[in-house]
């Protein structure tokens, strides 16, 4: 089965629920995501209604994870009542379009706590030795 095109070909019903989600487009060991609008009940392998951006989760040579967004169309689809999946909401929160997603806060404080515990453990190990 050929890979569905990135944008513009998906048939959709005006009244059906839409969702803005990440759709994996990379290959093995190389994730790459399109941020697309689809009908909410459709699979990620099916054609999308429209592509709104892209997300490259692998840091590039400048240690950046690149996100591209079409904010105008995003506004339009939000006005149409499209749902936003949590990963996309997190990205939008970090980009400043939405408020920061609670999950971002949660992972941040958990990472901070883990780091603190690791440092404490190291210190105790050094003091005992």
């Amino acid at each position, binding site marked *: *089965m050929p890979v*569905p095109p990135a944008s513009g070909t998906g*048939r959709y019903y005006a009244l059906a629920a839409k969702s803005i989600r990440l759709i994996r487009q990379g290959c093995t060991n190389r994730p790459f995501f399109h941020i697309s609008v689809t009908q909410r009940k459709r*699979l990620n*392998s*099916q*054609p999308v209604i429209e592509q709104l951006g892209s997300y490259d989760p692998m840091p590039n040579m400048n240690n950046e994870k690149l996100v591209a967004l079409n904010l105008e169309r995003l*506004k*339009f689809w*939000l*006005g*149409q*009542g499209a749902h936003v999946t949590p990963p996309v*909401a997190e990205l939008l929160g970090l980009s400043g379009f*939405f*408020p*920061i*997603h*609670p999950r971002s*806060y*949660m992972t941040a404080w958990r990472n901070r706590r883990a780091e603190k515990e690791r440092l404490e453990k190291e210190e105790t190990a050094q003091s005992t030795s």
Partner: protein
Amino acid sequence: MMSQRYSLRCSFPLIIQIAEAHRKPRWLPIAKSKIYRIPKRPEISQEERLELRRINNNYNTKMRAIRRFYAEEWVREKSTLESATSEMSQRLEADEWLRCEELNEMWNKTIAAEREERRAQELTIMEEYSLARMEAKDKDLRERISKASAKIRKEKELCTTFVTPENLEETIDRILSNTVDYNFAIDLKGNTYQGRDSNIQNEDKKIQASN
């Protein structure tokens, strides 16, 4: 394999096995070794739970506001678009159209001038080319005519000696009266002896005779 479009058009739900790596099909039961396994629940402290609830509530409130804002903006935009199509935008469009036409005419004029120039140039080049060709052809023809006339002259010179029915008898008489014998003999030294009846003196015999 059915096409994706067909699967989209179908009204009844279709079960399609999408090829996903490392997944067993939905209809296979739980593995025997995993039947009584109870997954461990994540441990979240009360403090963290409360904090999460608080920030989630805040987030949901903000998101609701944002959603409503964009929905209302969409409605507003739509209404302005609809009102604009009536007078203002039509006038604007007409002005734009006129401006475009003027610009287009200007471009057309410049391009027409360029085209005329180019065509004149092309015409002169073509004329030169055709004249050169015609001259070459004339020259060739003249050469051929001169060659042919030279050949004709030569033939005419030759044709004075031709045998015709008028002078046939005469010629036969002439030939018979003075026959030419083309036979000849040749010896080892390369001396030729013309004629069939010419007298040949043998040198060896001559030498013997002298002795």
